[in-house]
């Protein structure tokens, strides 16, 4: 049975004190803490098995290459990709989305085409398409979510048109927590010939990704949110699409033949990994994904569902607190405002109590503005979050409230 109390012990940083207080980390949606196995893997990679990959014909390089490619296989398994060749290591989810926009997007979008986004996309999946639209003459179209943040199928369906070429949506909103019906979205989009990119940054932390079941064309997530290192992300793409796409960046490791006059490019995934990649970060990500895969995702989901219910109730018990995003299908993020208190002031007091929450627009400024705010507070859950964490968070929140 999944027990967050036991899981906690795998995360050394959770045991440190913050200003003499327990470390109540409620900002996993921004970046997750790291399990001990990751640090061990990083140490081993640097201390015993480090060299550049795909180059040297000597032992260290061979081991490093093997570890790097093993990480790709693990990532493929994590998202249930049919082949590791569909897995591209990027710097971040942001880079993954930019890669698709700059290659597939620029090649295939033309004047009159539409890019369909939800109104809940964060900047990585919004600004990128906005700018791609400017370059190509395509148009960005948005569909609305419900008042409570829920995904409304009719809204999506109505916004889909014969001009839609790309649907780029989150699988779970980083502000509202809403889970999107990814599989259904892909089916509907494919029916009209559009491609689908899934931003799985938040989803990957809480639910099982299955790219074959989703049937998505592209999917991106970042390493640091799934308990892995920073500076590494994963972009999945259907191989047939990847094969047709031009390179994103040029340099070493992505070439087949180079002369002074011209260059031919190698096949994916190497075609999209120009230069020396984030070798150790990728290997570390592999360790973190393996760590996650030892758990039964159904159990994590069940545990989280209860914790979400519990947290929601505790939050709504606080006078003047307004919670944004209460869809039935939601993951563990709670964006809220307390009447008359600026989120920054709240966070200020919470920080002194050892509680870490995020404030601001969470890189989803249009959505937060549409909710009528410049800034909100957000608490989010990880696999190590316990009921006691929630109690401590709520106690600190009540204390903070009494301050003002």
């Amino acid at each position, binding site marked *: 049975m999944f027990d967050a109390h036991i899981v906690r012990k795998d995360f050394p940083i959770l045991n440190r004190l913050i200003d003499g207080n327990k470390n109540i980390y409620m900002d996993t949606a921004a970046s997750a803490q790291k399990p001990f196995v990751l640090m061990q893997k990083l140490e081993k990679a640097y201390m015993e098995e480090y060299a550049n990959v795909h180059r040297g014909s000597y032992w260290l390089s061979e081991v490093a290459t093997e570890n790097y490619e093993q990480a790709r296989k693990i990532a493929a398994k994590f998202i249930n990709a049919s082949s590791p060749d569909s897995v591209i290591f990027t710097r971040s989810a942001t880079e993954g989305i930019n890669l698709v926009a700059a290659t597939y997007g620029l090649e295939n979008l033309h004047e009159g085409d539409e890019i369909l986004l939800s109104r809940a996309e964060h900047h990585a999946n919004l600004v990128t398409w906005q700018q791609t639209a400017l370059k190509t003459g395509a148009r960005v179209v948005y569909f609305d979510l419900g008042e409570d943040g829920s995904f409304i199928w009719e809204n999506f369906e109505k916004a889909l048109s014969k001009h839609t070429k790309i649907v780029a949506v989150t699988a779970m909103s980083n502000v509202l927590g809403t889970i999107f019906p990814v599989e259904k979205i892909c089916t509907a989009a494919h029916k009209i010939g559009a491609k689908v990119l899934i931003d799985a940054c938040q989803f990957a932390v809480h639910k099982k990704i299955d790219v074959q079941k989703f049937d998505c064309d592209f999917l991106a997530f970042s390493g640091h949110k799934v308990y892995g290192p920073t500076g590494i992300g994963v972009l999945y793409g259907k191989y047939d699409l990847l094969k047709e796409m031009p390179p994103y960046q040029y340099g070493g490791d992505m070439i087949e033949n180079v002369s002074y006059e011209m260059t031919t490019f190698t096949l994916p995934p190497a075609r999209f990994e120009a230069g020396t990649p984030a070798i150790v970060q990728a290997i570390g990500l592999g360790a973190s994904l393996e760590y996650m895969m030892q758990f039964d995702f159904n159990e994590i989901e069940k545990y989280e569902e209860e914790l979400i219910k519990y947290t929601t109730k505790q939050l709504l018990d606080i006078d003047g607190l307004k919670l944004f995003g209460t869809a039935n299908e939601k993951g563990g993020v709670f964006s809220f405002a307390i009447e008359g208190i600026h989120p920054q002031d709240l966070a200020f007091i919470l920080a002194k109590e050892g509680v870490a929450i995020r404030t*601001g627009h969470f890189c989803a400024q249009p959505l937060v503005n549409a909710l009528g705010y410049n800034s909100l507070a957000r608490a989010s859950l990880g696999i190590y979050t316990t009921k006691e964490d929630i109690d401590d968070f709520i106690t600190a929140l009540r204390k903070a409230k009494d*301050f003002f």
Partner: protein
Amino acid sequence: MSIENLIDDFSFLDNWEDKYRYLIELGNQLPHFDDTQKIDQWKISGCQSQVWIIPHFSNSTLSFQGDSDAIIVRGIIAVVLEIFNDKSAQEILDIDVEEIFDKMGLREHITPNRRSGMLSMVDKIKFYAKESLEGKHEHSRVPSEENL
């Protein structure tokens, strides 16, 4: 109230809660801007809450007004204004604000994000002081827009 009084008051308060309560009290006393003053021209970037600082130039000294939508930030603004108001441009440039916050025992209680917000305010104030020294505002009460 002088800056010495403020330093005395803050260093007298020995826990963060009382220091914060005092900041909130100072924040409450700070006059609010009206909407015509809350414009982008006066907005300080680099803060997690909205912060506005308006400079006023007289012959020999500078003074500032400030506001924010967060109350603790308003308290910090009150302290910052107390430190810098009615000083000559050279005096403003010579002030080590971190040292003063240290003396107040506030430095350790202000999170890095908040500190960078505070330092953005101070940077802007010093920017105006520098401009004033360069003679850009000798005859104007507010700086010209192209200098912002």
